[in-house]
């Protein structure tokens, strides 16, 4: 099946228990508290493509990344990698070898006590892909060269490198088991702007050369525009708008997407921008109806009580009553 998507995420939810410890809860006569970090999220990524998830802090995009790589299981819904369920894949190293993850903070994602060559070689050893010091050493040198570092850098410790170089090491490590699918959780947001572009170009270049598929998590729309084929806009654990990235960037439909895009700094913009208004409500106690209605300029009585379903508009799916009813101005 060449046309089947590489990764399918189907109505996945994840609820976290954020109650206080049992004794304190009983003494204060409190109920259990739960946080719905991800709420019925669905998307699919084709082989060789990049899907980006964007949203403000706390909208659940990093949780989606962690669910996809199996760091914790979904509360409901299913994640399939090339048609195989990922919940079964926890026990399948063969499936796990084919995906890896790049983390946000290159200062925390490399073990400070390990030499770079051991960090990069860890997936090789974990999956038993190569054996023998020389074979592993050669492969590590090759990987370091691939990300623009020197093979001799393998002897050093992570603290001897800058942030951008560390992120290159993370990428070399992520690539060492020759995965086809990479989850990138804000891979550039901890880096200087000048270095961000280098890392993004390296990632694009590697994608073309190795045919990688990316799930790209970011809050930076400029970065996302540079990287993505498909886009999903998340708000309070839900995807509110998804579809081809260019279409959404040129004609955003959901009021939240419009608000985010209007906030991108832009050279030929002279005043007249809508500021991003209000704050994200607590996901522990989400508003009824459409979760965005307290901040939405188009909200009416229906939005406050009824949760919007997805309305297909061209290739784009939007969860908004105003779009469905045609109340938006073009």
């Amino acid at each position: 099946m060449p046309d089947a998507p590489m990764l399918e995420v189907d109505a996945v939810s994840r609820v976290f228990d954020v109650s206080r410890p049992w004794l304190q809860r009983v003494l204060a006569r409190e109920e259990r508290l739960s946080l719905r970090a991800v709420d019925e999220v669905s998307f699919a990524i084709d082989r060789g493509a990049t899907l980006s998830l964007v949203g403000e802090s706390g909208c659940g995009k990093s949780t989606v990344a962690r669910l996809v790589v199996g760091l914790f299981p979904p509360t409901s819904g299913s994640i399939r990698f090339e048609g195989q369920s990922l919940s079964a894949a926890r026990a399948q190293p063969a499936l796990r070898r084919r995906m890896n993850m790049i983390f946000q903070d290159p200062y925390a994602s490399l073990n400070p006590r390990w030499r770079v060559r051991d960090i990069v070689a860890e997936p090789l050893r974990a999956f038993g892909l190569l054996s023998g010091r020389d074979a592993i050493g050669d492969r590590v040198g090759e990987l370091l060269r691939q990300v623009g570092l020197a093979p001799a850098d393998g002897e050093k410790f992570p603290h001897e490198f800058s942030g951008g170089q560390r992120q290159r090491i993370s990428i070399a490590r992520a690539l060492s088991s020759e995965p086809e699918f990479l989850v990138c959780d804000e891979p550039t947001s901890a880096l200087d702007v000048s270095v961000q572009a280098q890392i993004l170009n390296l990632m694009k270049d590697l994608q073309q050369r190795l045919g990688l598929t990316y799930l790209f998590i970011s809050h930076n729309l400029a970065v996302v525009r540079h990287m993505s084929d498909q886009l999903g806009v998340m708000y309070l654990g839900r995807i509110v708008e998804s579809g081809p990235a260019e279409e959404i960037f040129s004609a955003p439909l959901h009021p939240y997407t419009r608000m985010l895009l209007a906030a991108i700094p832009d050279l030929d913009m002279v005043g007249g921008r809508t500021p991003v208004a209000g704050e994200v409500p607590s996901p522990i106690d989400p508003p009824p109806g459409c979760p965005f209605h307290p901040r939405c300029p188009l909200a009416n009585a229906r939005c406050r009580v009824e949760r919007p379903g997805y309305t297909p508009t061209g290739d784009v799916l939007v969860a908004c009553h105003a779009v469905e009813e045609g109340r938006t101005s073009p």
Partner: protein
Amino acid sequence: MRGAARALARFADSDFVYSFSRSPIAILSLLVVAVCILAAALAPLIAPHDPFNLASLNLMDSFRPPLLAADGEWTYPLGTDDQGRDVLSGIMFGMRISLLVGVASIVFASVVGVAIGLVAGYAGGTVDAVLMRVADIQLTFPAILIALLVDGVVRAALPKDMHEALGIYVIILAIGIARWPQFARTVRGSTLVERNRDYVMAARVIGLSRARIMATHILPNVLGPVLVIATLTLGLAILDEATLSFLGVGLPVTQPSLGTLIRIGNDFLFSGEWWVTIFPGVALVLMVLSINLLGDWLRDALNPRLR
């Protein structure tokens, strides 16, 4: 070989050595500790007399005064005890036992404590709660009481004719069990911080087992404080052993430690033969004080915030 030489050169050039060379207290303490270790390790070779060789003892030599007293002589620089045994040689052999028991019990306590702390911190939940409550309960009792209890229970369980042969292992076990909670609590605290770091997540993503993540990723990152606690607790463990021996429940009389010497000498303190108990006491105080000062310095030297 060249790699080792380079590592040595880098070590000699490090902040750690520089900070050591600038601390007279640390240098003096290390010197005292080194002398104690050498005297203890080489006791059978360099001690002037052999206190265990009954044939060499002469009751006529009992209670010879030390050099400090007016009529002291060089044959017995620190005097002799009631059996005519040389006090200096006794101290050297006693230090051997004291250091051996101290180091062995701290190694035991740190291995147990680090393992429990790692598991509690990484597993969390009920496992963590149970292990840490056990540690908390134990910390409400003085360590010496726990050691007395363990010592008593193990002795009661063992047949009497094995007490002498196994005495040293029993006391190492007793002190080790009394001292593990501090290691466990410190390691648990560091583990709680480390287990949420991204590098642990990265290891989980590629499907490493919990045991492997704990051993290869978390353990190297939580060991720093363990070295400091081990040094500081070593002094306490030596004192634990001396206290138990002083109370007469520690080692058998055939293996006299510094505590045993102090207890025996204590009987003659008021009849004028003060040297039999004072010199082993001074040796114990000097040794424990130096180890503690060294531990204090180590704690400051390894703490980046105090630099």
